[in-house]
């Protein structure tokens, strides 16, 4: 046991980062489940990474906002392509998403074979480490979160499916850099899966499920000195199972 690490100034920024990620990923995750395109986030994140690698291999050594602009544009372009796939081949869209993921990942490996510095950039983009984040770095994440939530809930029923893909690309590209690809996937799918039977209160319960996973996961990783990201993924799953069994009862009692 390692009580030293159980310190709000160490775990606080990571927890806030988790809440921001959950705020967008719970509603988007429910939509992803509804459409049955589970691996959309992996494909989008990989395309964003590929965009950055390609920029590097053309010798454009952008830093800061330029990298973000490239990553976001690549993600948006990928999202538009996948939306088009949904329109044309809806029954095999999931398979196409899987193929896009491996193609983007392998294109990245090929582009990187000559450039290990691009690899560093890709790692920073896809393997964000939640514990390294500081409050200042969360400000742009907060901005993206507000934007995505405003557009998502502001338009309500009037939103176009293309908008879902666009907002999804923005949210995933911003969060993957902070918490990494595993936590993005877990935050998107696990809470949404746990509360899939709930309709009206689903968002709140999903968010709470996620928040408990992040909170307990961070504390456990501090106490046991385990890598934080991986610990949180497991605690998200446990919190999800717990809340699923609770909501099953809730739904039954209502029926």
């Amino acid at each position, binding site marked *: 046991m390692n009580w*030293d690490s159980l310190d709000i100034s*160490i775990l606080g920024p990571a927890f806030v980062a988790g809440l921001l990620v959950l705020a967008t990923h719970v509603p988007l995750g429910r939509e992803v489940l509804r459409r049955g395109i589970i691996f959309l986030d992996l494909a989008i994140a990989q395309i964003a990474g590929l965009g950055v690698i390609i920029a590097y291999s053309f010798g454009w050594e952008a830093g800061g906002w330029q990298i973000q602009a490239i990553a976001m544009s690549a993600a948006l372009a990928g999202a538009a392509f996948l939306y088009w796939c949904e329109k044309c081949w809806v029954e095999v869209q999931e398979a196409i998403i899987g193929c896009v993921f491996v193609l983007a990942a392998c294109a990245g490996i090929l582009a990187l074979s000559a450039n290990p510095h691009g690899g*560093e950039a890709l790692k920073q983009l896809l393997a964000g480490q939640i*514990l390294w984040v*500081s409050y200042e770095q969360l400000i742009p994440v907060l901005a993206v979160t507000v934007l995505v939530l405003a557009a998502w809930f502001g338009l309500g029923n009037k939103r176009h499916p293309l908008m879902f893909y666009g907002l999804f690309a923005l949210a995933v590209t911003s969060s993957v850099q902070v918490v990494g690809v595993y936590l993005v996937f877990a935050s998107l799918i696990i809470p949404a899966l746990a509360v899939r039977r709930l309709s009206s209160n689903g968002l709140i319960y999903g968010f709470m499920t996620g928040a408990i996973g992040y909170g307990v996961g961070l504390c456990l990783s501090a106490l046991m000195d385990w890598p934080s990201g991986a610990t949180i993924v497991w605690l998200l799953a446990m919190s999800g199972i717990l809340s699923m069994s609770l909501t099953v009862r809730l739904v039954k009692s209502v029926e």
Partner: protein
Amino acid sequence: MRNLSSLGAVCLLFVVLPSQAALNIFACEPEWASLSEEIGGDKVAVYSATTAKQDVHRIQARPSLIAKMRRADLVVCTGAELEAGWLPVLLQRASNRKVQPSRQGYFMAAEKVERLDIPEVLDRSMGDVHAGGNPHIHLDPHRIQKIAQLLAERLIEIDTANEEFYRARLSDFEQRWQAAIERWQKQAEPLKSLGVVAHHKDWRYLLDWLGMEEVATLEPKPGLPPSASHLATLKTKMATQRAAMILRTAYQKARPSEWLSDKTGIPAVQLPYTVGGSQSAEDLFGLFDETLTLMLKTTQK
């Protein structure tokens, strides 16, 4: 029962108190943790952020890293960009004024000694080359000795009250180290001018000290994984240019070196590389003993 537990609490107090009074040292790598213990003895409490089984170029973020960094009085790392992927962000997150760069509590070992292979021009096409030269300096015992002196001076600056203690520990260490260097150099006579294939450029300083030659690396460029075509080129190259052994560390994958060994008949050997990299390498002395023994055993096969 209650008496027993209060007795336990009192004992705990005595155990805890001295370590709190000690100087907290945060070492990035086990070799610097070991050296800090040699000089600091029981006046320091040393924490090593990585083990010999980890690639120090990149590590996973754990809360204890921030907690330890926050309490550190002195940070002892390799520097020269080796930990560039995580040390700056860790220093920033811990926001401990004492150990920020340019402060007394910030000690970068590789930046205190001469480094080899400093590139004249830094070109991205060369691979993961460090602008500050090759940072893997700890396998040269002469450089270790220089760093030991400077580290002792730094400890005295921070903890002046124990000056005598650190001086005595340093001179004791230097005596044993000097004797060991002489023993090692005699022992390593048969290794002189032998050729070696290395996985990464980790062995630069060891080979330089022993007068051995690095004829090739498994990585086509530093930081890039061994590729099929590069391994094939190595195989043909090794037919004409004899190498005595293929070296790798405990954290590098065994397959590329085993593949080349299989194809060429050159023995592949895993060396401890740093303290804790094998059972006998439990301190710096054991590290060099074990390294030389393994290399000599390989040549006698």
